[in-house]
Every structure is written in structure tokens, then in C-alpha cells.
């Protein structure tokens, strides 16, 4: 049951891109480039740095958790009262880069990383899973 809930509450998107990691890193970390594919922002690749992403539907509050140039970038992603962590992983391949994005929320083992999250979500989802299993 726990493994299922962990899986379903994490989103992974992964693509092979015919570009070197250094170039993709720039697109992931330079504000004017981030704006072109994601959202308007005041991002800085500095651990603990807080930044916002702005879209017409609202604002996402973020804080940088980890920066390892050309390899990994991780930040919190808080929107709609829900906290999650977005982690980018760049792995060089013979033809370019494998780019992997994982957004995970509510996992008890990651709870430490969430600023302001009080540990209630994992319990809620555990309770929810039980109840849904019963009603099916």
C-alpha cells in the first residue's frame, strides 16, 4: 500500500534530448531562458534561495534545495497550499542528454525537506488510500 501511494504521488517525465548537458543546464537555470519554456521567475541557482514562478493562473513559491551544475537541480514547489519537490537530473548520453524531472509530494521520507509542511499530508493520503480501497 505504501509503495503504491509513493508511486502515484510522484510525477516523472523523462526525455532524451540531442543537446549537451551544459546547454540544457543554462535553459534550466537562467531566468530569461526559464521564462521561455516554464514561467516568469526570479530564479537564482543558489541553495536556500527563495524564488517565485508567475503564470496567469497564479504564483508558485519555490526554494532551491540542491544545485550541482550540469547534473542536478532541485527546488521546492508550493502551489495551492500543497508542497512538493521538483528535481531535475541530467545524464550525458552518446547522443546528448537524458533529462529527467521528478516532482514528488507528500512522501514521508522527504518530509524533512519541506519547509513549513507539518507531516499531515502523508497521513492523510495513507488514510485516503485505505478508505478508497474499501469503497471500490
Amino acid at each position: 500500500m505504501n509503495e503504491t501511494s509513493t508511486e502515484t504521488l510522484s510525477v516523472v517525465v523523462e526525455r532524451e534530448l540531442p543537446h549537451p548537458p551544459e546547454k540544457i543546464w543554462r535553459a534550466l537555470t537562467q531566468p530569461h531562458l526559464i521564462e521561455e519554456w516554464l514561467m516568469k521567475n526570479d530564479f537564482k541557482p543558489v541553495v536556500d534561495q527563495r524564488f517565485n514562478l508567475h503564470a496567469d493562473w497564479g504564483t508558485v513559491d519555490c526554494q532551491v534545495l540542491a544545485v550541482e551544475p550540469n547534473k542536478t537541480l532541485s527546488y521546492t514547489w508550493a502551489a495551492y497550499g500543497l508542497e512538493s519537490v521538483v528535481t531535475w537530473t541530467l545524464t550525458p548520453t552518446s547522443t546528448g542528454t537524458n533529462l529527467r524531472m521528478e516532482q514528488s509530494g507528500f512522501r514521508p521520507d522527504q518530509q524533512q525537506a519541506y519547509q513549513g509542511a507539518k507531516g499531515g499530508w502523508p497521513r492523510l493520503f495513507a488514510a485516503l488510500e485505505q478508505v478508497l480501497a474499501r469503497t471500490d
Partner: protein
Amino acid sequence: MPNAHDVLFRTLADPTRRALFERLCREGEKTVAALTARAGISQPAVSKHLAVLKQARLVRDRHEGRQTHYRAQLRALAPLIDWTSQMAGFWQSRFDHLEDLLKRMDQ
């Protein structure tokens, strides 16, 4: 991202309210008095939280004599279950934009 998420997340963001809701999920229908007995807050405070949960359609009430019974409405949680598929769609489209950008960028 629809407004339904907003309401749901805001409603459940309060730990006391979430605890009340969880109890109703786990233990089934309960009266306000029974909920108050273990909530650690006053009955008016419990009622206030229940009213907010009701507004978000997370609970339903039923009157029986002088007692009001509350029950969790699990269907209201559907948008939460959809969260992952919505975010997956969001990131897929962002990846498309990122690929377009990378094609335009210099090495």
C-alpha cells in the same frame, strides 16, 4: 488548474481541520459531541471547522433529534487523486517548450 483544487487544499491545509476529516474517514459517521471529546478544542471551534469542511463538500451533515451527525464525503477528494495526472500533463507540455527553446539556443 481548476479552482476546486484551491478550495480543497486550503480547507485541508489546517491541521485541526484535517485531523477531524481524517477521523471521519477512518471511523465513519460521528456526532459533533463525539468529535469534540477527542479534538482538544471547544465544541464551537469544532463546529466552525466542520462548517468549512461542509462548504468544501468534504463532509455531509445529518440531523437526528438534537444531534448533528457528520460523515466524510470521499468523492470530494477526486481532484487530489487527479493531481498527478494533471501535473504530468503540465510537465509534458513544458518539456515540449523546452525542446523548442533548445533548438533555438546557441551551443
